[in-house]
């Protein structure tokens, strides 16, 4: 094929936007003298239909094989003109743009200077255009399945949406049951819906959905591959209970020698469970799990004469020989919905959380007021003879949020409302209770939030603006030292119970998923979305999406909305069945590559591997780009000493002539 460059140069007036400052005719005349330029035209609006038609006609009639458009920023219209080229049957990557508007006519006043600069920019574009090569956007097939990591409400919702659309979902949950944080809640703000009542049907749906494979009590160990083709390795931990045989009857737990002696994680360690346990009554799957760190038989090899659970189980489901199982499968997309941990108030010792039993966190109170909680929903502190019902109750907000001293600058978004909700519930449950809330600000921004905040204040809950400095014990009472900043009065408030409205933090093991999926963290340490505005559920890794609090604190409706967004983003890929990969990616000249691995180290996407190849019978290793993973940043090309790695459309041999033109031409 005769591929001698025949370049068309199109100089845009952009009305008067360019033409006012740049002598478009002079630029046109200049361009006509440049090497390989066959056609030069100027036109009022190149991006208009007639403007584009000019280009199309010239390509077709004059046989142009490269196009330079001197107009606005390529960030504005590069795609427009690429389509123009494609419509005329020319490879869209034979386009080069000269930005003579944003970076020339709009920023310069002197017509001669601006015209001279425009000429230079056009010349640089022409020399690059001469060297452009056709690029093709390849497509790869998408494995019609999705992995959802985390079985909280975000993961559940995302899994259900994808499964309902007809695609296979692997839902991986690290604890024995799905449900997540929401299952621990009693009521939800501001509507006071029963959390369990709205959540459990969805949990059951997950368990029963033909398209969902629930891998509870499991961890993702490894994910390799790229968008459309992720290979996943999951470790299913041994439950020591054969889930096929277990009927969930619970006799094992009743019989367990440690029944009622192990703090229940679900009840924030306030309730007790056995070594074989169901985390909570509505758990899904409704299968028992033996806690390998507690079970006498598993830790000591001996449990009385014989393990009572095994003896009692009628279906013979107890199996102490069970081993972890590695499950491997392929998916096209991944949704990360790993949720949050609550702030550990022990990091703010002035609040005495570690010292005083009647200083609680919000989530602990949540369990206390829950009918399924350790007290059956009664607000009672202490045990046995010491049990008492607190009357003077204070809430402290922003514990571990908006607090640089603990490294959390952000607002946790839910504490204001859950405080209002809990205050309301406590007052409802403790007749005559005297409830107050210490706050910095009240952020009641969501639908129905302000109304609810109003309601609880009308119910008699006092809001006192002040950030307590210290809590200490005086007799039976806790004393809160605080300044009422509205009244400018120092207070010492004596109360029976303090509830700390702890904020939300990234999971303590968040790093694991970062390493597995090459995600990034934002400054708040939550997972970083691809764009804070326009790609809030995407990540820098194509095909990997975020849902729920893993990305940042949010309430249930926002979480569900984001989960649905993530599911929808995943479905776009899954349902199209194909994914287009970048065209302007890197490639390696394997003949000159010395396999030093700098590019491999540098690539932020893990898109380059060293592979063994045979060079004239000699084994050598060379870098190879995984085209589906490469995002076209070109960092590898700059790192390559031998120039063996190059980025398409930004090759050294395309950039050097640009430098020459800009340097030499005065």
């Amino acid at each position, binding site marked *: 094929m005769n591929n001698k460059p025949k370049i068309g140069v199109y100089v845009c007036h952009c009305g008067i936007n360019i033409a006012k400052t740049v002598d478009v005719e002079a630029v046109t005349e200049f361009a006509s003298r440049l090497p390989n330029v066959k056609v030069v035209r100027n036109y009022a609006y190149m991006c208009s239909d007639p403007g584009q038609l000019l280009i199309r006609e010239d390509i077709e009639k004059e046989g142009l094989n490269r196009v330079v458009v001197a107009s606005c920023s390529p960030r504005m219209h590069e795609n427009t003109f690429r389509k123009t080229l494609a419509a005329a049957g020319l490879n869209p990557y034979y386009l080069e743009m000269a930005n003579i508007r944003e970076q020339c006519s709009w920023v310069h006043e002197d017509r001669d200077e601006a015209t001279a600069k425009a000429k230079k920019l056009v010349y640089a574009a022409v020399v690059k255009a001469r060297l452009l090569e056709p690029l093709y956007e390849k497509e790869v097939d998408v494995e019609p399945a999705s992995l959802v990591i985390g079985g909280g409400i975000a993961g559940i919702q995302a899994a259900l949406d994808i499964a309902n659309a007809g695609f296979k979902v692997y839902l991986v949950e690290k604890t024995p049951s799905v449900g997540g944080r929401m299952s621990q809640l009693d009521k939800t703000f501001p509507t006071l819906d029963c959390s369990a009542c709205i959540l459990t049907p969805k949990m059951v749906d997950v368990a029963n959905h033909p398209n969902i494979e629930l891998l509870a009590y499991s961890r993702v160990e490894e994910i390799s591959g790229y968008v459309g083709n992720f290979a996943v390795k999951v470790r299913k931990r041994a439950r020591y209970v054969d889930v096929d045989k277990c009927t969930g009857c619970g006799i094992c737990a009743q019989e367990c020698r440690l029944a009622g002696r192990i703090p229940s994680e679900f009840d924030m360690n306030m309730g007790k469970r056995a070594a074989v346990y169901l985390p909570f009554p509505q758990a899904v799957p409704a299968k028992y799990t033996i806690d390998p760190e507690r079970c006498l038989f598993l830790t000591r090899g001996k449990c009385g004469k014989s393990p009572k659970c095994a003896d009692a189980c009628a279906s013979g489901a107890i199996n102490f020989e069970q081993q972890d199982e590695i499950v491997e499968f392929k998916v096209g997309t991944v949704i990360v919905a790993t949720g949050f941990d609550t702030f550990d108030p022990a990091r703010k010792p002035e609040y005495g959380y570690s010292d005083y039993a009647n200083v609680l966190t919000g989530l602990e109170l949540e369990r206390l007021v829950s009918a399924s909680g350790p007290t059956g929903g009664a607000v009672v502190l202490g045990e046995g003879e010491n049990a008492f019902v607190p009357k003077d109750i204070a809430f402290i907000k922003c514990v571990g949020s908006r607090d640089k001293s603990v490294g959390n600058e952000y607002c946790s978004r839910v504490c204001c409302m859950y405080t209002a909700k809990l205050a309301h519930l406590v007052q409802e449950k403790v007749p005559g209770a005297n409830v107050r809330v210490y706050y910095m600000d009240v952020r009641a921004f969501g639908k129905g939030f302000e109304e609810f905040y109003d309601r609880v204040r009308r119910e008699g809950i006092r809001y006192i603006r002040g950030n307590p400095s210290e809590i200490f014990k005086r007799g039976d009472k806790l004393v809160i030292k605080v300044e009422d900043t509205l009244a400018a009065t120092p207070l010492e408030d004596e109360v029976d119970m303090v509830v700390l409205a702890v904020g939300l933090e990234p999971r303590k093991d968040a790093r694991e998923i970062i390493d597995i999926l090459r995600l990034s963290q934002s400054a708040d340490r939550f997972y970083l979305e691809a764009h804070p505005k326009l790609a809030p559920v995407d990540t820098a890794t194509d095909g990997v999406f975020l849902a729920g609090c893993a990305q940042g604190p949010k309430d249930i409706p926002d979480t569900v909305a984001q989960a649905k967004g993530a599911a929808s983003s995943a479905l776009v890929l899954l349902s199209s069945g194909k994914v287009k990969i970048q065209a302007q990616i890197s490639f390696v000249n394997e003949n000159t590559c010395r396999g030093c*691995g*700098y590019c491999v180290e540098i690539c932020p996407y893990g898109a380059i591997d060293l592979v063994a190849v045979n060079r004239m019978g*000699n*084994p050598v*290793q060379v870098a190879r780009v995984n085209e589906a993973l490469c995002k076209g940043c070109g960092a590898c090309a700059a790192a390559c000493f031998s*120039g063996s790695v190059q980025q398409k459309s930004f*090759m*050294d041999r395309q950039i050097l002539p640009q430098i020459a033109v800009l340097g030499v031409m005065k």
Partner: protein
Amino acid sequence: MVDVEKLKEIARETVSRDDVKYLIGWRQGTYGFRTAPHFVGTPEEADNLIFSPLCSHNLATYLTLVEKLPVPRGQDPDSRKVALLVKGCDSRAVVQQLIEQGIGRDSVFVIGCPCRGVVDLKKVEAKFPGMREKVSATWGNGTIIFNLPNGNVEVPRQEVLAGKCLTCRYPNPLLSDLNFGEEVAVWGSDDYADVKNLEAGSPQERWSFWEEKFASCMRCYSCRNVCPMCYCEDCVLDRLNPQWVMRSVNTAENTAFHLARAFHLAGRCIECGECERVCPVDIPIMKLNRKLSKEVREKYAFEPGLDPESKPLQASYRPDDKEDFIL
């Protein structure tokens, strides 16, 4: 005292191994104070091995310089190891080559030779001009003893050691499969005085210093070819498309060549000084390399060629790297 007979014995044993292709060491040169790389393929050839203050060549360069011929179809490539004698500085080259995967650890058998410094041939030949007869040398106590035809001459080693040896901080090999000779106490420290001296001048003074040097460069590429870290088979500076550096030999192109060469060694140069040693027109190349070594040490607390597990400087970063000059 260096027990050369012991070295020969080690070499004989090494080349007798089934998994060793050949051993690279040093031998007496053809005249005067010269020595030469010596490729030992058979136990007999080990007889000519020496190890002395004259053994300046960094033999690690041959690990990557070796030209692999096409292997005829049906035959297996020779995967036997190359055995190599290394001084402290040379061993850093091997370490850095391992990091950059130019060579595999199992493809090389490293015999470490703790070193008390090698001579700068230019200093020695100036001291004893016109030496035709072959001369050997040994290390004395803080001296170098030259076995001249008319008797031994002992010279304080400060007078004849190579510049790199005067500031040497790594006289003992950092990596070896086998050690020959006793560990040597570190004597040197490096304050980069040579670099700082030049830095102190004005830009004009610095350029006039370098202009003269770069202008005299003939682009024989010996500095590049001898460098154990310049292992690209196709050097980017030899390319015609794109042509980074014109073939024309003049100050501008020579400067671009030297800047590119030096930059490509930033965070990689292990300061064996071979580039400067081989330069036929005596360009102080190490002054360039050492500038970058200094910056790399000061700014990133990094030294190449020390730890085979470390990441290359230019392929890593810290979010809080200094950036005082950035607008």
